[in-house]
């Protein structure tokens, strides 16, 4: 593995369109659920252990080389909210564009050809990690970190939080991120033998509910 490739893939400046998304943070702020650093931390911890774990499992499984189209279907059955499925595919399409130039390869081409409207973002992330020579655990790390990094960055803009405080939240979540990535990679190892049902499918009701509410809002700062 190349440690630099992982840094590049997980870098918020990687041109995959993630900066336009708050991962449910804007909706949480709008509904009054998050208004300070403590709320940010509780939000991120909850998202990491639910949607983050599910995304990390899918990304790790895609990085093992398991059929990405079957995993894309598994992502659909794990994403009940239509707005969140749309967002995941839109982010997947943007990541695919960047990935095919950065780490060109037949597996990315194959997925892009079969999902021209975009595959779910964690699947594209896993196939990209594979193209970059990264391991399933690396892919899970990137997905887990992304599940909290996006909301933390967005909270700084939405609440005018101290960016140092927001970053310290992410530092405090490092152990949780590692644990989630390890659990996701462990499940991904079993997919070849036991099928996609062994992958985490943890969901959070409020992320689904507020995700749909946010999509219906005429004025918003972030796309999700």
């Amino acid at each position: 593995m190349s440690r630099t490739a992982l840094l590049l893939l997980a870098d918020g400046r990687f041109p995959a369109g993630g900066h336009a998304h708050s991962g449910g943070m804007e909706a949480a702020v709008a509904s009054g659920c998050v208004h300070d650093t403590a709320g940010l931390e509780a939000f991120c911890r909850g998202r990491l252990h639910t949607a983050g774990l599910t995304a990390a499992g899918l990304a790790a499984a895609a990085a093992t080389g398991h059929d990405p189209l079957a995993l894309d279907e598994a992502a659909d059955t794990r994403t009940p909210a239509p707005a969140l499925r749309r967002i995941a595919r839109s982010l997947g399409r943007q990541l695919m564009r960047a990935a095919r130039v950065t780490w060109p390869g037949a597996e990315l081409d194959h997925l892009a050809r079969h999902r021209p409207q975009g595959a779910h973002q964690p699947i594209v992330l896993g196939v990209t990690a594979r193209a970059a020579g990264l391991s399933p655990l690396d892919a899970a790390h990137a997905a887990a970190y992304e599940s909290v990094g996006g909301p933390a960055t967005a909270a700084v803009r939405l609440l005018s939080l101290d960016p140092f405080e927001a970053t310290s939240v992410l530092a405090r979540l490092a152990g949780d991120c590692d644990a989630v990535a390890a659990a996701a990679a462990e499940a991904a190892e079993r997919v070849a033998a036991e099928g996609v049902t062994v992958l985490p499918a943890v969901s959070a009701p409020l992320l689904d509910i507020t995700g749909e509410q946010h999509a219906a809002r005429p004025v918003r700062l972030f796309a999700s």
Partner: protein
Amino acid sequence: MTAAAAQVSAGESSTPRAKDLPTARAHPAGLHATARLTAVHNGRTTTLPLLHSDGPFHLRRLRPRGDRARVCVLGAMSAPLGGDRLALDITAGARTRLEVTTAAATIALRGSTTDPATYDVRLTAGEDASLHWLPRPLISTRGSTLHQTYRVELTATSHLLLREEQLLGRTAEPPGHLSTRLTVRRDGRPVLDQHTVYGAPAPAWDGPAVLGGHRATGQLLLVAPEPVPLPAPVLLGDPERGHCVLAPLADGAALLATAVAPTPARLRVLLDTALAHVRDATSSL
């Protein structure tokens, strides 16, 4: 089944012996029970040739509603308690119409051990069958640990209406630990795969990404043979009094309402309102 489990499942008579076996310590007081219910169509109407009560599940026929046979699950004893292994197996055969309810809330209690209890509900509906599973809420009480699974198997022509409501703790009580895995397959293909985990030690389960301080949560799921037209997702309620979204799954022939609310009464209002929208969208209920 392990030797320890076999000892316990053999019933009360084996308990004194099981206590002496070192391997039996895993489930010292666990109750094993599987109730079964099968509906078939006799050419004229839905009949219930198999009503097998077991352990805490007492199955009772109710008066049919129109051509829909109805069964109520009565709680014959306090369950699930820690260490219990409970299962409910419900099959609606081809062309049947069946509704199953419960008489009272299901209360997960700690019992004499902190061992987890399991409660597996298997719902199977055949060709052109219509199955409604509309139980009263499940209440997770302090100190209890319950792992619940719903496994739903449908054919391409089955109808399903499923409602589940969960209450996390009784009044002013922290909940136990409640994990629920719901898998729905139609013609062998997954439609919905969902796992929820609430109560310590689940991290941030009552935080702003998961339940946001609400103590009641629930879902209403409709699966129909044909795509169900819903012009746009239905948004109900508000963050303080509870809110709910009704929207199609990726498989357009399924609608799911997801709700969180401060009280079970508010939760039921939201899910009933969602159900009214479902009824407007489809003639198949």
